C-alpha cells in the first residue's frame, strides 16, 4: 500500500497549491499539480472510465461465470490505476467516436480505449504518457523455436496474415520470399499454424502475446518490421486535469517498471474466444460436449431460421406458382424471371446482398436479413416444386373436371391441387431439409446459427475436428428426424 500512501501525500500537497497551473503533459510524480480532478474522484470513490469494448485484446466483451463482462489489457491497467488511487472502478462502454464528447461532458473521468495520442486529439484532451507501443509480431510453433528468429528466416516458407490488415501489407512488402496466405480470422490463422498448414503468422503484438500467453504450443517474437511503427497508446483525460494525469502517469510508470503489460495480456488472453480455457493444457481439455451451450444456441437458431424461412418461402413460392400458371402475362414474366434469377445465383451472394445492399438503405439486423434472404431463395424453389407437382397430375384429370362443367378454379382446387399435394409434400420436405443445411450460409453475415457456433467452438476449444463432428451429428439428427416425420405424414396421406 506504499503507492496509496504516496498518493495521499500528493493529494494533501495538491490541495495546498490550488492556484498553480503547471503543464500537465510533462507532469512527473514529484511535480505539483493545481486542480481538483483527482480529489473529486476520491470524493465520489469511483473512477469512471470510458471504453469501446470491441477491440481485443485491449478491451472486449467476454462471458465470465455466465455474466457479460468487459475485459482486456486496458481494463487491467484501469484496475491498477483505480487501485492506486484507492477507489472503485466503473466501466462505461460506448462507441469509440462518443468517448471524447463523453469525457468533455463529464460522463467519464478518462478514456482507455487503445487510443493513440494524436496531435488532433491533443487539442481537446490531455494524454497520459504512452503506455504501450504496439509491435508487429511473428507467431510460430514452439517446436520451431530454433528455426526462426527474425522475419528474414522465412524464405520459401508459408506465412499467414489476416486479410486486409496492416500485417498483410507488412508481410507482402517485407517478407517477399515467403508464400503469403491470407485468411479472414485470426483463429483460422492460428489453427492453420498449429496444424502445420502455415509456418508462421504475422500478428499485431498485443494479439500475439494474448494468444501465445495461453498456448504452450505457440511462441512469438517481434518481427522487426520497418513499417510497423504506430503512435503510442495513451489514456485521455480532460484538459487541465493535471492532478489526475500525474496520478495516472505514476501508475503507468510502475507498470512499465515492473513490466506488467505481458502479464495483463496473458490474463486477457484467457478470455479471448480463441484461447483455451484457464489452466488447461492440451491433454487436460474437457469434453467437446462441455461447449453444449454454444451448439444449443446454434441449433436453436438454425431451426428457427429454417422453420420461418420455409414458412415464408412456401407462401412466396405458392404465390409465384399461382402467378406462373395464371393468365396475366406481365406478372407471369416477372415471376418466371424471379425464379430463374434466384435459382441462377448463389445463395451466398443473395444473403450478403440482402444484408449489405438492403442494409445500406434500411438497417436490418443480420438474423432478419438472413431469414429474408433464405425465404426469398426458398420461395423460388418452392414455386418450381408446386409447379412440377401440378404438372405431374395427368392431363385427363383436368379434362374430366372441365367436362363435368367445373371452372378452372374449381377444378384446380378440388381435383388438381389435392392430387398435386401428394407430389408437392415430399419435395417440400426435402426442400426443408435442404434449407436446414443451406441456412448455414447466413453465418457469413454473423448470424450465430450452427455453423457459426461450430466455428466459435473451434476457436474456444482450439480443436478443429471434434466441433465439426458434433455439428455434423446435430445436422444429421435434425434432417433425419425431419425426414422420418415427413415420411410418417406422407404415409398417412397416401390412400390409394
Amino acid at each position: 500500500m506504499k503507492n496509496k500512501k504516496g498518493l495521499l501525500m500528493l493529494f494533501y500537497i495538491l490541495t495546498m497549491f490550488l492556484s498553480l497551473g503547471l503543464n500537465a503533459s510533462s507532469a512527473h510524480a514529484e511535480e505539483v499539480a493545481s486542480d481538483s480532478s483527482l480529489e473529486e474522484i476520491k470524493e465520489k470513490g469511483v473512477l469512471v472510465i470510458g471504453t469501446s469494448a470491441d477491440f481485443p485484446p485491449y478491451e472486449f466483451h467476454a462471458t465470465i461465470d455466465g455474466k457479460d463482462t468487459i475485459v482486456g489489457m486496458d481494463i487491467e491497467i484501469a484496475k491498477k490505476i483505480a487501485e492506486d488511487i484507492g477507489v472503485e472502478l466503473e466501466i462505461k462502454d460506448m462507441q469509440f467516436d462518443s468517448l471524447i464528447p463523453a469525457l468533455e461532458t463529464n460522463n467519464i473521468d478518462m478514456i482507455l480505449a487503445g487510443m493513440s495520442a494524436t496531435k488532433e486529439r491533443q487539442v481537446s484532451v490531455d494524454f497520459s504518457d504512452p503506455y504501450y507501443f504496439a509491435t508487429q509480431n511473428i507467431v510460430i510453433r514452439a517446436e520451431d523455436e530454433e528455426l526462426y528468429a527474425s522475419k528474414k528466416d522465412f524464405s520459401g516458407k508459408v506465412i499467414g496474415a489476416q486479410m486486409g490488415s496492416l500485417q498483410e501489407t507488412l508481410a507482402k512488402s517485407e517478407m517477399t520470399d515467403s508464400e503469403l496466405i491470407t485468411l479472414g480470422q485470426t483463429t483460422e490463422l492460428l489453427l492453420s499454424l498449429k496444424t502445420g498448414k502455415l509456418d508462421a503468422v504475422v500478428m499485431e503484438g498485443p494479439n500475439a502475446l494474448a494468444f501465445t500467453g495461453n498456448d504452450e504450443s505457440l511462441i512469438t517474437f517481434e518481427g522487426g518490421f520497418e513499417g510497423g511503427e504506430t503512435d503510442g497508446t495513451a489514456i485521455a483525460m480532460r484538459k487541465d486535469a493535471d492532478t489526475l494525469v500525474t496520478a495516472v502517469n505514476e501508475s503507468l510508470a510502475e507498470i512499465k517498471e515492473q513490466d506488467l503489460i505481458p502479464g495483463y495480456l496473458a490474463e486477457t488472453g484467457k478470455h479471448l474466444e480463441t484461447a483455451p480455457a484457464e489452466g488447461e493444457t492440451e491433454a487436460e481439455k474437457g469434453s467437446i460436449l462441455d461447449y453444449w451451450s454454444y451448439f444449443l444456441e446454434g441449433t436453436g437458431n438454425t431451426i428457427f431460421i429454417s422453420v420461418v424461412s420455409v414458412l415464408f418461402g412456401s407462401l412466396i413460392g405458392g404465390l409465384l406458382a399461382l402467378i406462373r400458371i395464371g393468365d396475366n402475362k406481365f406478372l407471369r414474366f416477372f415471376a418466371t424471371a424471379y425464379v430463374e434469377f434466384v435459382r441462377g445465383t448463389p445463395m451466398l451472394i443473395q444473403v450478403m446482398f440482402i444484408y449489405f445492399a438492403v442494409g445500406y438503405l434500411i438497417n436490418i439486423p443480420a438474423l432478419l436479413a438472413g431469414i429474408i434472404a433464405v425465404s426469398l431463395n426458398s420461395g423460388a424453389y418452392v414455386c418450381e416444386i408446386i409447379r412440377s407437382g401440378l404438372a405431374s397430375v395427368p392431363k385427363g384429370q383436368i379434362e374430366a373436371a372441365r367436362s363435368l362443367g367445373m371452372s378452372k378454379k374449381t377444378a384446380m382446387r378440388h381435383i388438381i391441387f389435392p392430387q398435386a399435394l401428394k407430389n408437392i409434400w415430399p419435395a417440400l420436405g426435402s426442400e426443408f431439409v435442404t434449407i436446414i443445411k443451406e441456412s448455414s450460409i447466413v453465418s457469413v453475415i454473423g448470424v450465430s446459427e450452427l455453423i457459426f457456433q461450430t466455428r466459435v467452438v473451434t476457436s474456444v476449444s482450439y480443436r478443429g475436428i471434434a466441433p465439426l463432428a458434433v455439428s455434423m451429428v446435430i445436422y444429421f439428427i435434425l434432417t433425419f428426424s425431419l425426414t422420418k416425420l415427413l415420411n410418417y405424414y406422407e404415409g398417412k396421406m397416401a390412400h390409394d
Partner: protein
Amino acid sequence: MIKIQHLAKSFKDNEVLKDINEEIKQGEVVVIIGPSGSGKSTLLRCLNLLEMPSKGEVVFEGTSLTGLKEEKLNHLREKMGMVFQNFNLFPHKTVLENMKIAPMKVKNEAEPVAESTAIKLLRKVGLEEKAHMYPNSLSGGQQQRVAIARALAMDPDVMLFDEPTSALDPEMVGEVLGVIQDLAESGMTMVVVTHEMGFAKKVADRVLFMDAGYIVEQGTPEQIFNSPVNERTQDFLAKVL
C-alpha cells in the same frame, strides 16, 4: 342438337380436322369409326371444346360455343357428359365422392340430393356396393362404369364417348358396352368414337366413317357395314371385320 360448321383443327402444322360439317339430332346415337389418326377423337373433343377448334363453329342447343366466355362455356359443358378412354376418375376421391363433386360444386346441389342421385346411378350401372371404395381398387370395367355414372350425375343432354373400351381387358368390354347400350335404348343423345364394330352395328342410328380429317362416308349401320360406297371405307372395313 349439335351443329358443326366448317370445323377445322390443326396442331401446329398438322391439320387433323378439315372442314367438318355435321349435325347431331336429339335422341340420335352417332358412332364415329375410322383408322387411328383419322381425327375421330379430336372431333369429339372439339364438340365440348376440350380442344379449341382452329376454324369453324360448334353450335350446341342454339348457342355457338366457339368464342363463348369461360363462364357460359362451363355452364354448357355441364350438359355434355364425356367419358374418356382412360376413365379419368379422381383417384383421391371415393366412387361416391367422384359422383357427388360436380353436382355439388357446379350445380350447387345439396349433398343428400347429390348422394341419392349418385346411389341411384350406381345401382343402374351395378356398382352400388363399390360406393365407398377408391377408384384404384376397382377393375377397369368397373371404373369405366363409374365414369359413365359420374357423367350422368350431371343430367346431361348429350353423352360423348371417346373410345370407352379401348383401355379395357377384353373380358371387361362387354359390361361397359352393355351400360352404353342401355343408355342408348333409353333415348339419350350420344356420340361414340369406337373400334368395336359389332357394337357400332348394334347401337348406332348413324355411322360416320372418318379418314385423314374428313368425314368420308356416312349412313345407317347397314349401309356402311354391308354396302360401303367409298373405297377407303371398304379398305378399312376389310381390315377390321
